């Protein structure tokens, strides 16, 4: 039996019944702790989000016939960059959350998104034939090469802003992943299938907090409304199709109706108002999916990439 599948109860019992006081007893405990647990079941698995099984186990990574590699790569970059950049923003909450339980929860969201980003970027490097790794793509692309929507890159703001952003993103991405779990690319389909479960949790988390803040104190309701007002102009971009999305993915226009309906229900239950605001303008028709971002992305990437770029060719 693997170490970490041992029920907590039995380890507790062991500790409670081990009554020897000698140092050797502790040494024994220490050694058993220090035993390596290699392989996919080892410690490293915790670094891949909350899904424990490798989502790509037994999945054929060969590019299916009939799929354009460049298109698939671009599409994986779009979804992967969304996840990566939002993960980076969530990570910025670490040591700043309103309560310790929320530290743990926000880190979980970040880990899930980071896990999705890694798989999607890796897939992009496979699909375009360059063999670039997740790190090549995360650390060595320039700002204009990032394909994420602008919603995920804006600074965190207060807790209400971050919750509002998460609500919009998780609701939309959950619906998208559901559709993508039947995608002809088996890798993308597998990532989406696991992502559906993760995003369901993210959505519940964001929904619950929207309700608590909207229906909490007058001050929290004001903050939550302000958060929704601030992120809402960025929502339209999530429903605006890039040609690549139409060719190889799900047309995001199809998400508009179910997402708006779901968001409207949450906002209403929270006693708040669906913002009536125009979408954030694009630049000559181009936005995040075309690599045209807000000013917020540059500093985010500078921070994300600085160590890796100071050591070209180094392994970490």
């Amino acid at each position, binding site marked *: 039996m693997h170490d*970490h*599948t041992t*029920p*907590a*109860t039995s380890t507790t019992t062991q500790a409670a019944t081990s009554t020897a006081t000698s140092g050797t007893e502790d040494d024994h405990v220490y050694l058993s702790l220090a035993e390596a647990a290699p392989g996919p079941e080892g410690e490293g698995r*915790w670094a891949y989000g*909350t899904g*424990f099984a490798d989502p790509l186990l037994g999945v054929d990574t060969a590019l299916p016939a009939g799929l354009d590699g460049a298109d698939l790569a671009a599409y994986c970059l779009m979804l992967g960059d969304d996840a990566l950049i939002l993960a980076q923003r969530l990570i910025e909450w670490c040591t700043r959350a309103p*309560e*310790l*339980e929320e530290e*743990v*929860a926000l880190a*979980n969201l970040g880990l899930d998104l980071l896990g999705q980003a890694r798989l999607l970027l890796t897939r992009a490097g496979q699909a375009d034939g360059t063999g670039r790794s997740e790190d090549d793509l995360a650390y060595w692309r320039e700002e204009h090469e990032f394909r994420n929507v602008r919603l995920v890159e804006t600074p965190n703001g207060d807790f209400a802003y971050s919750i509002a952003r998460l609500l919009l993103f998780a609701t939309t991405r959950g619906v998208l992943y559901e559709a993508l779990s039947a995608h002809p690319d088996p890798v993308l389909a597998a990532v989406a299938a696991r992502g559906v479960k993760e995003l369901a*949790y993210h959505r*519940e*988390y964001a929904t*619950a907090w929207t309700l*608590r803040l909207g229906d*909490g*104190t*007058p*001050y929290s309701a004001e903050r939550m409304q302000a958060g929704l007002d601030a992120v809402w102009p960025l929502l339209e971009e999530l429903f605006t199709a890039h040609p690549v999305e139409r060719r190889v993915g799900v047309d995001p226009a199809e998400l508009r109706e179910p997402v708006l309906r779901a968001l409207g229900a949450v906002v209403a239950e929270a006693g708040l108002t669906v913002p009536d605001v125009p979408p954030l303008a694009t630049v000559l028709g181009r936005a995040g999916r075309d690599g045209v971002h807000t000013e917020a992305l540059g500093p985010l990437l500078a921070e994300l990439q600085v160590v890796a770029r100071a050591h070209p060719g180094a392994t970490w």
Partner: protein
Amino acid sequence: MTESPAAPHAESPAEHKAEHKAGSKADSRACWPLYEVFVRPRRGLNHVHVGSLHASDDRMALLAARDLYTRRNEGVSLWVVRSDAITASTPDERDPFFEPSGDKVYRHPTFYDIPEDVPHI
């Protein structure tokens, strides 16, 4: 050491909570109620008490319990229950020390005032 036992706090955690009026200046000590967490490690086993956490409502407690106590797949089922909803026996009912608070589980929050002049507590 010079600390001496003090009278248990008069107020329960729930009463403490009620003092925070909506809209008033936020009290940074506003603290969520305590929940006890029980995990069924595997099918066929009982739920076992694994610890506690703070949450403002049942659903938050359940989600936090999932994040905290089963993030390494330690369980197949979770229970959370407000600590103040548990009635427990005292180890020794004769013990006068515990009589005043005899039905509060684990004597959790704020039952002790430690005098300010006791160092490093």
